[in-house]
C-alpha cells in the first residue's frame, strides 16, 4: 500500500480495482485508468490527493462532487458507478471514456465552424439543463471539462465531466465554495463568480458555456489579459469582448448574437434557461443533430434564420416565412410620432418639439417583410434611419450572404449622405420595418439650421464609422500577427514591413490600438 502522499503505481491494487496508469491530475485528485480486478471492466478512478485527506472541508467537497454526479443520470454527463473511501482516501469510480477533451480538440484544430460548435454544444446544454433541474450548478464549465468520447463505432459523444466544485442550489448544504473563496477557472468565470461566489444560479454555467462557445468558434478567449489576475477579472466584469465575427469574418451574425447573449455580463440579459439557449442554437446545427434535439428544445425561434439560409439565402425565403399582413404593399409612406422616435436611446434629451420639427422635415416609410430598400450598384443620395423593425444586409455577389442586421437607432446607406458612390450592398426589410428617409440636401439643411436631432444623427454616423474602423484595424493587426507567427522562421518580407508602416499611418497613431469595441 502506497503512503498517502504518493501516486498509485501501475499494477497496484486499490480496493476492487487495479491501477493501470494516471490519466490526469486535477486540483485535489488524480484520475487513473484502472480495471475491476474480477470483471476486468475498465473504469476511471478518481482518488483524492493524500495531501487533502486530513482536511475535512476538502473531503466533504470531494464527496459532494461524488453525490452530485451520482444523482445525475444523463447520456452526456459522466456516469458515476461507485463512491467510497479506502484507507482514508476518498475515491469516485466513473465510466472510462476514450477520446479527448474539447481543449485538446481546440489545440489541434485552432477553431471550429459554427455548425460544428452548435452540434457539440447542444448535448452539453442538455446535460447542464439536467443538472440545473436537479438543483446542481456545475460552476466550472470549460473545454477541459467537456470530453469528446469516441465509442467502438467511432461515434462521438460530448460528455460533461467534473462536478468538482458544483454546489447544490439548496441552502442546506452550506457550500464549501462559499465564504469568498474564488473557485473555478478565471478565464471562463462569470462576472458574478468573479465578484463574489455566493448567490449564484444556473446562469453562471450558461456564461461559462458561452465563453467556451466563443473560444470554440474563434480559437481565442474573449478575455485573456495575462498581465495579472486582477486585470483579467476587471476585463470579465466590464464584459466587452471583441465581436467573434471581427475575428472570424465568415461566422454567421446570428450565431454570434447567441454566443454573446449567453455571455452577457448582466445575467438578466442572458437566456432565461439553458433550454432557451439550446433552442437558439438549433438553427445552426447540422440537420441530423437538429432532428435529435428539436424534441427537447422545441421549434427554433423563427426570428433567427436557419444555418442553410445564412449560407445561400435568397433572403426572400426567410422573409417569406415571416407572417405579414395579406395584401400589404411592399412599401408605403407613413406617419411617425415623436413618441415612436423615443425608442432610439441616443435621441434621449431631445424635446418633443425638436423631434416633431425633425419629423416634419423628413419622410417616413414602412416596408413589409422582405421588401427591398435599395440594391447594390444603385446611385443614391438617401440614407435610412431604422425606427422600428430590422433590416438585413445582403451581398448579392456572394449568393445572398447575410452580412448583418440593422436595428432601431442604426442607419443604412449612410455613405450616400457624404459622397456619390454606388451602394456597396443590398438592403431589405427582414421584418416589417419603419424608417426615416434622410435625403442628403434636406439633411444638410437641417444640420445648417441647427436641428439637434440632425446633429445627433450625424454623430451616430460618425461613431458607427469610427467603431467599424477600430474593428477593421484590429482585425488587420490580428491577421498580420497570425501571419507573423507563420513567418517567424523566415525573414520578414518587405511587404509585411510595408503593411506595418501603413497600419501605423492609417491608425493615425492615436486612434486604433487596443481601444474597446462596442
Amino acid at each position, binding site marked *: 500500500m502506497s503512503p498517502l502522499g504518493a501516486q498509485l503505481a501501475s499494477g497496484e491494487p486499490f480496493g476492487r480495482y487495479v491501477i493501470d496508469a494516471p490519466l490526469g491530475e486535477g486540483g485535489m485528485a488524480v484520475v487513473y485508468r484502472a480495471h475491476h480486478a474480477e470483471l476486468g471492466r475498465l473504469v476511471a478512478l478518481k482518488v483524492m490527493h493524500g495531501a487533502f485527506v486530513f482536511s475535512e472541508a476538502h473531503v466533504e467537497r470531494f464527496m459532494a462532487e461524488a453525490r452530485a454526479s451520482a444523482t445525475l443520470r444523463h447520456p452526456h454527463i459522466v456516469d458515476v458507478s461507485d463512491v467510497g473511501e479506502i484507507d482514508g482516501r476518498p475515491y469516485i469510480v466513473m465510466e472510462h471514456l476514450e477520446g479527448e477533451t474539447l481543449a485538446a480538440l481546440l489545440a489541434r484544430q485552432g477553431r471550429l465552424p459554427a455548425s460544428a460548435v452548435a452540434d457539440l454544444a447542444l448535448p452539453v446544454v442538455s446535460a447542464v439543463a439536467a443538472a440545473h433541474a436537479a438543483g446542481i450548478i456545475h460552476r466550472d464549465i470549460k473545454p477541459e471539462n467537456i470530453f469528446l468520447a469516441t465509442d467502438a463505432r467511432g461515434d462521438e459523444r460530448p460528455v460533461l465531466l467534473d462536478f468538482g466544485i458544483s454546489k447544490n442550489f439548496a441552502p442546506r448544504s452550506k457550500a464549501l465554495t462559499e465564504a469568498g473563496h474564488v473557485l473555478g477557472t478565471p478565464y471562463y468565470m462569470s462576472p458574478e463568480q468573479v465578484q463574489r461566489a455566493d448567490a449564484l444560479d444556473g446562469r453562471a454555467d450558461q456564461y461559462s458555456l458561452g465563453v467556451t462557445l466563443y473560444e470554440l468558434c474563434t480559437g481565442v478567449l474573449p478575455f485573456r489579459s495575462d498581465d495579472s489576475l486582477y486585470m483579467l477579472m476587471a476585463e470579465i466584469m466590464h464584459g466587452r469582448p471583441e465581436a467573434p465575427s471581427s475575428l472570424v469574418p465568415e461566422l454567421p451574425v446570428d450565431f454570434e448574437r447567441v454566443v454573446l447573449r449567453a455571455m452577457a455580463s448582466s445575467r438578466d440579459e442572458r437566456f432565461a434557461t439553458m433550454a432557451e439557449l439550446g433552442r437558439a442554437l438549433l438553427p445552426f446545427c447540422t440537420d441530423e443533430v437538429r432532428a435529435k434535439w428539436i424534441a427537447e428544445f422545441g421549434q427554433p425561434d423563427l426570428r433567427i434564420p436557419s444555418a442553410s439560409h445564412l449560407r445561400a439565402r435568397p433572403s426572400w425565403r426567410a422573409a417569406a416565412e415571416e407572417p405579414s399582413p395579406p395584401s400589404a404593399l411592399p412599401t408605403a409612406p407613413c406617419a411617425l410620432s415623436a413618441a415612436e422616435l423615443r425608442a432610439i436611446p441616443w435621441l434621449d434629451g431631445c424635446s418633443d418639439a425638436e423631434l416633431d420639427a425633425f419629423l416634419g422635415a423628413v419622410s417616413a416609410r414602412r416596408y413589409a417583410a422582405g421588401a427591398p430598400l435599395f440594391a447594390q450598384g444603385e446611385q443614391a443620395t438617401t440614407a435610412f434611419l431604422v425606427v422600428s423593425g430590422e433590416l438585413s444586409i445582403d451581398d448579392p455577389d456572394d449568393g445572398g450572404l447575410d452580412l448583418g442586421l440593422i436595428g432601431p437607432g442604426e442607419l443604412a446607406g449612410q455613405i450616400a449622405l457624404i459622397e456619390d458612390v454606388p451602394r456597396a450592398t443590398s438592403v431589405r426589410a427582414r421584418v416589417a420595418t419603419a424608417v426615416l428617409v434622410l435625403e442628403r440636401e434636406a439633411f444638410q439643411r437641417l444640420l445648417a439650421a441647427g436641428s439637434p436631432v440632425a446633429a445627433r444623427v450625424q*454623430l451616430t454616423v460618425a461613431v458607427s464609422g469610427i467603431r467599424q474602423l477600430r474593428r*477593421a484595424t484590429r482585425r488587420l493587426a490580428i*491577421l498580420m500577427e497570425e501571419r507573423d507567427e507563420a513567418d517567424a522562421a523566415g525573414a520578414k518580407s518587405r511587404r509585411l514591413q510595408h*503593411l506595418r508602416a501603413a497600419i501605423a499611418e492609417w491608425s493615425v497613431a*492615436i486612434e486604433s490600438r487596443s*481601444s474597446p469595441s462596442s
Partner: protein
Amino acid sequence: MHLRADKEVLRRTPLFRRLDEQELAALAVCLRVRVCDAGAWLFRQGDPGASMLLVAEGAFAATVRERSAEEREINRMGPGEVIGEMAFLDAAPRSASVRAITSATYYELDRDGLEILRAHSPSAAAAVTWAVIRDVTRRLRRMDALIEVELERAGVLE
C-alpha cells in the same frame, strides 16, 4: 490674455478644407489655444478621449506601451495635423500617449467647444463632423482593401 486661434493655420489644415471663411472664423473662436514645452505630455494612453487637438506649431510624438512596458513611437505630427479626432467623437479611451518633442502651440476643441460652435454656427459644427466622417470612411476603405489582401493571402477568400 486670451489667445485667438490663427485662421491661417485652420485654412492650411487638410481636415478643414471644406469649411468656408465664415465657418473657419466661427471655429477659430471656439478653439482653445495652448502652448507647451518640449517634453510635455498632451495625454496618456488610457485617458478618456474628450477633445481633439490641432497642431499649430512644433512637433509631437505618439507612443504606445508595449508588453515589455517600453514606449514605442508610432507616429509624429506637425503643423496642420489633427490628433485624436475619433476618440473625441466616440469618447473611447486614448489608445496612445502624445508628447511634445519641441516647444509647441496647439488648438484644442472639446465637446463643450463643439456645442458652442454648433450654437454659433451649426454648419461649421456639421462641417467639422463631416470632415472626420469622410476621413474615417476613406481610411476604412483602405483598411478593408488591406484586410482583403491579407485574407486572400491566407487562403480564406478565393
